[in-house]
């Protein structure tokens, strides 16, 4: 069964090759240029197939537009479209030799490609990225050790480390890495860790390890698998909520709701999130939101109250809220509902982490970013090259430089009284009349 994409590839590929051949054999230079434009359009189509939309647009505007217009312009300017029959090559063996050599090259390249000597294997999976978040309000700052080596130093409450790639496993036999948490500044060899856990290393993934204590103060890890793939719409954000709010009573579950507009339908965002649980990530439109975390079951009462009387004093209080928080588009947000004890009172404390999602591969955004960061210097060099080319073109085609007659020639020409040419007097007259 022939897929649509493959069928399109074959059709457009045939057109591209046909256009190139026609360009080769056409006698008229203008026809050749038009066939080349057709070929460039086909290549632009292939760029679209290869998920490079920006390059496809650049191909159409720069190549098929600007460059070919320049070609056509010069062809017309020189009158080169009226081909004099091409002079027979000076060497009779040149044509067959050229054809033979190119066919040989094509054969070699074709065999290499078909035998898959071209390395078309899948790229190596990248090491997973890992970050650590400290969400224990009453836990002192910690140091994080990975496989016995210091990895993150002095991580205080509400702080998050940068995403770091896990190193390759040195010993193939060992499965996974060991992440250990020590109190900050303590000798890791002489003391027991506060928490030590083997972490599974999935491939090509992003993990957030949240250090949080339960009501008894025992630390544990909660793992959030981040999703940094681009969202379909860049005006959307992705929200994940983690319940790290310790409570003494049995039911610690919370519900997350958007209280900006209580009347709107999708009021509840996350239902019944138990302590230590991670919600599924929600895709929401970018904008300002006031999100609140309610104790489980309290949300309906709040909704009823809000619906009946806007001025009512709410008996139902959220345990935590994010007031008028801006949710940027194309970001992955992680909201950790946490708490710390202040003066004997448990107070809620929010940790909101935001990561920009990977941009779509091949998009103008992605290209622009690498062009203006990593490839800034080559970009400047190219710009300089264009400038030099521009100046060079002006110098080269300046007629004053090449055809300016010498003083003697000019004088000679003026004096000559060839029929049809103006005499000196007539010439002077024409100049003075032009001047009026």
């Amino acid at each position: 069964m022939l897929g649509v994409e493959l069928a399109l590839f074959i059709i457009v590929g045939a057109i591209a090759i046909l256009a190139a051949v026609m360009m080769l054999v056409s006698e008229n230079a203008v026809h050749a240029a038009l066939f080349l434009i057709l070929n460039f359009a086909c290549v632009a189509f292939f760029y679209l197939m290869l998920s490079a939309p920006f390059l496809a647009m650049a191909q159409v505007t720069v190549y098929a537009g600007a460059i070919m217009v320049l070609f056509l312009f010069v062809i017309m300017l020189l009158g080169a479209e009226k081909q004099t029959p091409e002079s027979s090559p000076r060497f009779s063996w040149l044509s067959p030799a050229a054809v033979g050599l190119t066919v040989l090259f094509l054969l070699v390249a074709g065999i290499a490609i078909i035998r898959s000597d071209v390395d078309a294997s899948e790229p190596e999976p990248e090491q997973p990225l890992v970050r650590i978040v400290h969400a224990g309000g009453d836990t002192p700052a910690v140091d994080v050790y990975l496989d016995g080596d210091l990895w993150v130093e002095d991580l205080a409450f509400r702080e998050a480390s940068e995403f770091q790639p896990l190193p390759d496993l040195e010993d193939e036999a060992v499965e996974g890495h060991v992440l250990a948490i020590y109190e900050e500044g303590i000798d890791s060899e002489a003391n027991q860790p506060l928490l030590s856990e083997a972490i599974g290393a999935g491939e090509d993934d992003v993990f957030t390890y949240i250090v949080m204590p339960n009501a008894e103060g025992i630390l544990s890890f909660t793992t959030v698998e981040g999703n940094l793939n681009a969202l379909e719409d860049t005006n959307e954000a992705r929200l994940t909520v983690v319940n790290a709010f310790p409570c003494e009573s049995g039911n610690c579950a919370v519900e997350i709701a958007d209280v900006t507009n209580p009347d709107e339908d999708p009021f509840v965002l996350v239902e019944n999130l138990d302590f230590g649980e991670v919600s599924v990530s929600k895709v929401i439109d970018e904008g300002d939101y006031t999100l609140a975390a309610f104790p489980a079951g309290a949300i309906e009462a709040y909704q009823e109250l809000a619906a009946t009387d806007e001025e009512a004093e709410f008996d139902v209080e959220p345990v935590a809220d994010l007031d008028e928080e801006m949710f940027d588009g194309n970001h992955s947000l992680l909201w950790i509902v946490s708490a710390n004890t202040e003066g004997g009172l448990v107070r809620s404390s929010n940790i909101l982490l935001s990561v920009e999602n990977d941009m779509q591969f091949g998009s103008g955004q992605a290209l622009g970013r690498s062009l203006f960061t990593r490839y800034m210097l080559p970009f400047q060099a190219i710009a300089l090259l264009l400038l030099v080319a521009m100046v060079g073109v002006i110098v080269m085609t300046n007629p004053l430089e090449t055809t300016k007659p010498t003083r003697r020639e000019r004088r000679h020409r003026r004096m000559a009284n060839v029929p049809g040419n103006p005499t000196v007097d007539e010439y002077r007259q024409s100049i003075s009349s032009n001047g009026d």
Partner: protein
Amino acid sequence: MENPEVANELFVLLSAVLFVLGTMGVLLRRNAILIFMSIELMLNAANLALVAFARQWQAVDAHVMVFMVMTVAAAEVAVGLALIVAISRSKETTDVDDLHSLQG
């Protein structure tokens, strides 16, 4: 990345074919403008291979490379056509076989 429907080898093969056609144009045609157009065809074939490999490795660097090639091609076309204009003005021809003033 899911397996693409059109294999990379096909794109590379197509790019090789286009490149060879461009080479033939350079070797067989005698008109300087047509030789120049064939060089553009070769540059495009190379770009196509670059973009195909960029998809394979999911590397946006190759797209930057293609962008630079396009820019250099634009500069090259401007200079080359200016040369052709200047030559045809003095020699009244664009046939490369008639341009042998550098021949020893």
